[in-house]
């Protein structure tokens, strides 16, 4: 469908400056594989309603894609941090860039929302391998399942090192990744440690130039990265607060964030919406990441995401009109459009919520 500037089925590799403001369609097969839980919930509802997933091409995502195209993958990975006010489209831009990576054939490690790992965890088990840490079996196994769906083609290619789980179980050297993931999914108790092992393996083997067939580029995409260095809302058994360091998942993820490996990129987005103990007005990296987080993440490239500009707003409005989403007759007039601009200040998420009521 090409209507008023919606270019469908064009792969992200070919997106350029001229395409800003235009929508492109995510192929349904890709959506199922790549984003089982990755997209924002309201966008998922929109996909169901419209029967298609259309993403707007915007400058922050284009900028990131251009950096990724030009980066040198024999050097340590660069860290990119998407930051901006609430509802400006950080998660959507991240998904856009992830789609690009997917079409390029990279291995994707995607954590849709790191905040989910530091709050509302029903089970918190003491870790089997290390006495001072805590495991989160449910979250870990769910993540492993998603990882399996996204990166199916790599499961057999990556070879593993030797790991010992218990006295009776151990993974022999040379076994494929798929088996390890299956083991993690089946045995919930050790799933967090499996996650740690998976991440370590990928780190060591990413971008290996001498592997030949096994060479792959790794992208680590974390949404809500400020969760890694903030406070948790989980309590230990003796009613004291849990530090993020003491959670196995968070600990391993922090190791991934460091740039002591090569052959990939680290894409992150800050998020205030799910964060605990952070004020609503905080949106700059220093405020959300905190001192510790800032020191660990830098040097990083901050990419700022802002509200729609005129052209983008126009495009969004026309898209909703085209999909017959705006039912109210007044919304089709010029005055109605001005009202919409005034009410939402061209903020993408507020506009979306407003139009849902019309």
């Amino acid at each position, binding site marked *: 469908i090409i209507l008023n500037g919606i270019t469908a089925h064009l792969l992200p590799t070919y997106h350029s400056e001229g395409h800003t403001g235009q929508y492109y369609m995510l192929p349904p097969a890709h959506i199922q594989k790549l984003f089982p839980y990755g997209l924002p919930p309201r966008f998922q509802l929109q996909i169901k309603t419209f029967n298609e997933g259309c993403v707007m091409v915007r400058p922050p995502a284009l900028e990131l894609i251009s*950096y990724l195209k030009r*980066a040198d993958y024999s*050097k340590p990975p660069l860290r990119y941090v998407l930051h901006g006010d609430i509802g400006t489209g950080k998660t959507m831009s991240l998904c856009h860039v992830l789609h690009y990576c997917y079409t390029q054939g990279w291995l994707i490690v995607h954590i849709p929302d790191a905040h989910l790992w530091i709050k509302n965890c029903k089970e918190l088990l003491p870790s089997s391998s290390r006495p001072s840490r805590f495991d989160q079996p449910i979250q870990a196994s769910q993540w492993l399942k998603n990882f399996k769906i996204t990166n199916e083609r790599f499961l057999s290619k990556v070879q593993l090192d030797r790991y010992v789980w218990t006295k009776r179980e151990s993974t022999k050297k040379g076994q494929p990744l798929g088996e390890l993931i299956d083991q993690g999914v089946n045995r919930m108790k050790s799933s967090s440690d499996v996650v740690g092992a998976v991440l370590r393996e990928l780190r060591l083997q990413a971008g290996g130039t001498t592997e030949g067939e096994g060479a792959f580029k790794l992208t680590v995409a974390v949404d809500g990265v400020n969760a890694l260095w903030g406070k948790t809302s989980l309590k230990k058994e003796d009613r004291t607060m849990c530090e993020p360091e003491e959670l196995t998942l968070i600990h391993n993820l922090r190791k991934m964030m460091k740039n*002591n490996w*090569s052959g990939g990129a680290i894409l992150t987005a800050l998020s205030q919406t799910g964060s605990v103990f952070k004020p609503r007005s905080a949106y700059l*990296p220093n405020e959300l990441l905190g001192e510790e987080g800032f020191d660990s993440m830098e*040097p990083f*490239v901050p*990419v700022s995401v802002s509200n729609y500009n005129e052209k983008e707003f126009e495009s969004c409005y026309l898209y909703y009109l085209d999909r017959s989403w705006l039912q109210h007759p007044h919304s089709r007039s010029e005055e109605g459009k001005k009202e919409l601009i005034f009410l939402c200040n061209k903020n993408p998420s507020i506009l979306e919520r407003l139009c849902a009521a019309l």
Partner: protein
Amino acid sequence: MAAYITHPALSSLCKINCNINAIYSLISFSRRISISSVLSTSAVTTESEAAGQGVRGQRRSKRQAGEPRTERMTVDQDWTAVYPTAASFKPSTVPLPVRMGYPVKRGVPPAKKGNLELIKIPNFLHLTPVAIKKHCEALKQFCTEWPSALDSDEKCMKHFPIQVQSKEFVSAGLSLKNPDARIVTLKVKLSSLNLDDHARKKMIKLGEERYCKDTDTLTITTDSCPLRQQNYDYAMYLLTVLYHESWKTEAWEQEKTRADMEEYEWEDSPSQKNVLDTLLRMRPLGAKDEVEELLGQPAVQEYRDTMLRLKNEGETEENLHKYKEAVKKLFNI
């Protein structure tokens, strides 16, 4: 024989002296007489008063009040002669049509004539600008001249860097004294004191909230002593103590950590380590580079500047943008 005299008091006395034998009759008589004398006294006194006034009217008349002085005052008169000292409000000498007081219903505040409210309150009619000028002129003979060398503010600040402020209170109440007059404020700029780097930082830390960063002034306010002189001495003492203490270095100052530092320093910071690590890893294997050489690159210096700005000045969009540029240059994106 009773000799009746017109004077009633004498007559009653006479009668009492004559009729000594009849005691009871005397008592009753005297009582009757005393009552009657009381009655007649009052009657007679009024009579006599009227008669007296009539008599005195020829000698001392109650003067009618003449016209008030205000009628004869010119506009350009010398007011200092009318109210040379502090005096209560005299309606006939103040030519202003002043009204004061709570008005009766559907009325106006009462006029100044006979107005107790105006007399009760303190007034400063003796301290008009003209009067004060005259005071100054009179005091000038006791003053010395302003030194001609101190003709600009900068020179004053240079030679006399310490400013002492205190307030004087004028009140005309039950007591002339005001307890707030004992407060003394001492202001001094740290740039005018002889401090080196360590001393300056220590002084700022000791001063806590008394130091203002924007104007670089240390403000010491003392009000713990009852007299202004004592407070002034105490403030000077505090300044001297601060100065000498900040020059001394204690043994435990060696344990100053990064968290105690006032400003962010890039040397030895985690940021510097990260950058060094990244650059070292990015170097192709086999090439050896000195740490100083790596740090001396212009891109690294620019990164350092942006980091300092970010941490010291706080985070803004602008600073963040510059940081982004610096990072891009560092990694050649």
